């Protein structure tokens, strides 16, 4: 399958233990890795999942085309989603959760492809910070993704083959437009809250800017109103790694019967480094060697950090489509909310009545606190009700997915007070 030296069983077990300790995680949830043979039988094929998802899916026909920023329209198209909890009679308790780059709609239930728990089960669930007994949670796979929403891995109804690079380039705004159409379909006029981290946070901002009247509260976490030059650079490294893999076949790898696993895993390895802080890496791995007494004077994974990254790369390719990675990273690169509003970020939120809670992590160098402060400044300039918290942690960008008590207490306090203003009863749906 992949020629990267790799000793699956022993190494994966080692990292599984680490993940369970919460010592390190991928951008996905640090959950159970392994499955026994019996469970494996029920895991879904990712190629199939891209067109016929196991989750709910809303299909829009030729008469419901989705206009895109690139000038093209998409029709027919579909958006795959999950819901948790119950929409109340007033339809006022809905929370849209926006997943990050490689996330999906399976927030709080097992992922059908990997069998792992939902990616934000620490935050979302019965009695959790985002309480599914109180709120109605909607989470959709992004446009351009590979978990059932229209994207490059989806079968083009015209040809019966995967779109590949024939799929139009999509933007964060396009993704948000698709999510708004889903909310229309679900009969949700106004969201109680829209919540998300990283690229999910970008969509929170794009949604709140495009649909202020539909957004009562917004919680953008570890994010920015634009992708920085450095962030674009890291994404370009990842895309070049994918496209340099001969198994990529100009994006037509599914028809060729191959998969660019080498390129995609290298892309994931490079990206994964950006999700962690130097301090956390040093604390967890240092210069420790992987199951050996000394260096081997070769290019095997001598160091634990190498072994860990290879593991992250390998598990990623099993669940994610390489072309989708190109498309979704590109959408992030193109995001610049200020540029869309004459260079003034404040204009993106002029007159807003949405209550914002902006959260940053002190050791996040991918979306540093300064980006959040610029956002807070713009919101304050509009007179918006904005709360800003910088959470002290050494765990880097990934902190938003981890067990960070200050994150939970901030979100919890903010939602509770917003719910009071919104007139949501303690029981929510009941």
């Amino acid at each position, binding site marked *: 399958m992949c020629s990267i030296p790799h000793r699956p069983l022993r190494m994966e077990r080692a990292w599984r233990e680490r993940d369970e300790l919460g010592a390190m995680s991928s951008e996905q949830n640090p959950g159970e890795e392994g499955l026994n043979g019996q469970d494996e039988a029920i895991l879904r094929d990712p190629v199939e999942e891209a067109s016929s998802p196991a989750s709910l899916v809303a299909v829009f026909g030729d008469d419901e085309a989705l206009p895109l920023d690139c000038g093209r329209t998409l029709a027919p198209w579909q958006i795959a989603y999950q819901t948790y909890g119950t929409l109340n009679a007033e339809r006022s308790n809905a929370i849209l959760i926006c997943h990050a780059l490689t996330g999906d709609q399976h927030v709080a239930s097992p992922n059908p492809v990997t069998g792992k728990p939902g990616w934000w089960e620490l935050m979302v669930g019965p009695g959790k910070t985002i309480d599914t007994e109180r709120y109605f949670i909607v989470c959709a796979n992004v446009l351009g993704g590979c978990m059932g929403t229209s994207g490059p891995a989806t079968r083009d109804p015209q040809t019966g083959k995967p779109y590949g690079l024939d799929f139009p380039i999509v933007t964060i705004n396009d993704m948000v437009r698709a999510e708004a159409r889903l909310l229309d379909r679900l009969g949700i006029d106004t969201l109680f809250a829209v919540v998300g981290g990283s690229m999910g946070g970008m969509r929170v901002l794009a949604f709140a800017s495009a649909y202020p009247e539909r957004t009562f509260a917004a919680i953008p976490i570890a994010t920015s109103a634009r992708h920085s030059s450095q962030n674009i650079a890291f994404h370009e490294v990842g895309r070049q790694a994918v496209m340099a893999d001969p198994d990529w076949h100009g994006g037509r790898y599914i028809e060729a019967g191959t998969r660019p696993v080498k390129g995609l895993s290298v892309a994931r390895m490079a990206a994964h480094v950006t999700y962690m802080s130097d301090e956390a890496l040093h604390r967890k791995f240092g210069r420790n060697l992987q199951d050996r007494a000394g260096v081997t004077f070769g290019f095997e994974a001598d160091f634990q950090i190498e072994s860990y990254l290879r593991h992250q790369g390998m598990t990623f390719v099993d669940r994610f489509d390489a072309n989708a990675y190109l498309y979704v990273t590109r959408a992030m690169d193109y995001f610049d909310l200020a540029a869309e509003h004459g260079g003034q970020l404040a204009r993106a939120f002029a007159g807003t009545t949405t209550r914002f809670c902006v959260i940053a992590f002190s050791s996040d160098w991918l979306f540093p606190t300064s980006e959040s402060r610029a956002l807070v400044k713009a919101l304050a*300039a509009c*007179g918006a009700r904005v*709360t800003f*918290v910088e959470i002290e942690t050494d765990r880097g960008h990934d902190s938003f997915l981890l067990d960070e008590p*200050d994150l939970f207490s*901030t979100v919890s306090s903010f939602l509770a007070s*917003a719910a009071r203003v919104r007139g949501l009863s303690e029981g929510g749906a009941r």
Partner: protein
Amino acid sequence: MNATVPQGRVDLELIASLVPQGARVLDVGCGDGALLELLETSHGVDGRGIELSQAGVNASLARGLSVIQGDADTDLAVYPDRAFDVVILSQTLQATRAPRRVLEEMLRIGERVIVSIPNFGHWRVRLQFLLGGEMPVTKNLPYTWYDTPNIHFCTLRDFVNLATTVGARIERKVALDAGGVRVPVNAPWWLWNLAGQQAVFVLRKDR
């Protein structure tokens, strides 16, 4: 009204009495948000807070307030000119790195600025320094010199001079003695500066 100000902070009640109904208010260093909540419930203000500590931010959030985690030295810059009717800084100016800049920033973003400060010219402080020859430690200023957060002490007189320097007009001033009782309004300046343990000023800058 369920909001109350913390015990022993007589200056907060005094500040609240100086805030007009329905004002847009920024409380810089809002702590657990008690004053802002009091102002929102009793004065119908549209309140915002700045607070450095995570505990204070969480407590303020729980009260339903909008709070920016930050401090007076760096984070007033996020607000546009005249964003607020009233900007409050209670018992914090002496702990800022650049009090003059902080005061100027507050005058920029607020129509009116309410500042409460401890008086380093209070007679007890003067007596301790004069007789003991050591940096004073009082009930109101309980820190030793080496661990105090208060890095820019001033007397009431010094503060008035600063206000003049930055071009602010003092609209109102109230000094409280050690028992929290107001020093008479018509008392001469020297008495204010001697008997006032703390004072609250309402400043405004004409533009």
